[in-house]
């Protein structure tokens, strides 16, 4: 963490950058597991069904909701960055962009949770 970054830690955009990095890091750690899980289909349908049965545990379902929230948060945070860098949405739009990103993340996680449970 640079001194420059610490000086701006009271700014919402600083926390948005932290959230973007943390969600990206967690998704990168999860992806190999996700790919290996899908790869169980190589051993046949029964193998994939066995894995899917394991995912019926409540804590696994709760983790899936958290993962959807991570993905949605990283998506909306990334869209916010693209809008700032390529469309030129600047300071006056920061609060609106951050609120929209947070709102869209919660909506995605809730929609997934309502269908999952």
């Amino acid at each position, binding site marked *: 963490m640079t001194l420059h970054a610490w000086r701006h830690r009271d700014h919402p955009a600083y926390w948005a950058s932290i959230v973007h990095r943390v969600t*990206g890091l967690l998704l990168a750690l999860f992806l190999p597991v996700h*790919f290996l899980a899908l790869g169980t289909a*190589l051993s046949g349908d029964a193998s994939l069904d066995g894995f*899917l049965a394991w995912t019926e545990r409540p804590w696994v379902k709760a983790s899936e909701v958290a993962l959807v929230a991570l993905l949605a948060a990283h*998506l909306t945070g990334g869209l916010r960055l*693209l809008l700032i860098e390529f469309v030129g949405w600047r300071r006056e739009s920061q609060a609106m962009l951050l609120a929209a990103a947070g709102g869209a993340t919660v909506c995605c996680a809730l929609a*997934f949770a309502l269908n999952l449970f």
Partner: protein
Amino acid sequence: MLWIAQRATAALLALCVVVHLATMIVAVRGGLTATEILGRTRGSVGWATFYGLFVLAVAIHAPIGLRTVAGEWLQWRGRAADACCVAVGVLLLALGWRAVAAVTL
């Protein structure tokens, strides 16, 4: 170059993730089974192309992001850090395309 690759893959991933999120939200309704998942994806050139591109974009995007985080948070830069990030990209590409093959072929 890496900056452009990060943004270009981000734009592609934005589209892919929206489709993936929408698919997941709809698909989990009523529970998931191998028959239901593979019935949708197996033999589908469209899904194979979509997920193949999705994995390729992830395998480029994620290592560049990890390289940035490693530099900022761990002060880990240089050839070893770059090589490690390339290895992560190759691993994601190999595992990802294996998974795509598993559910589409």
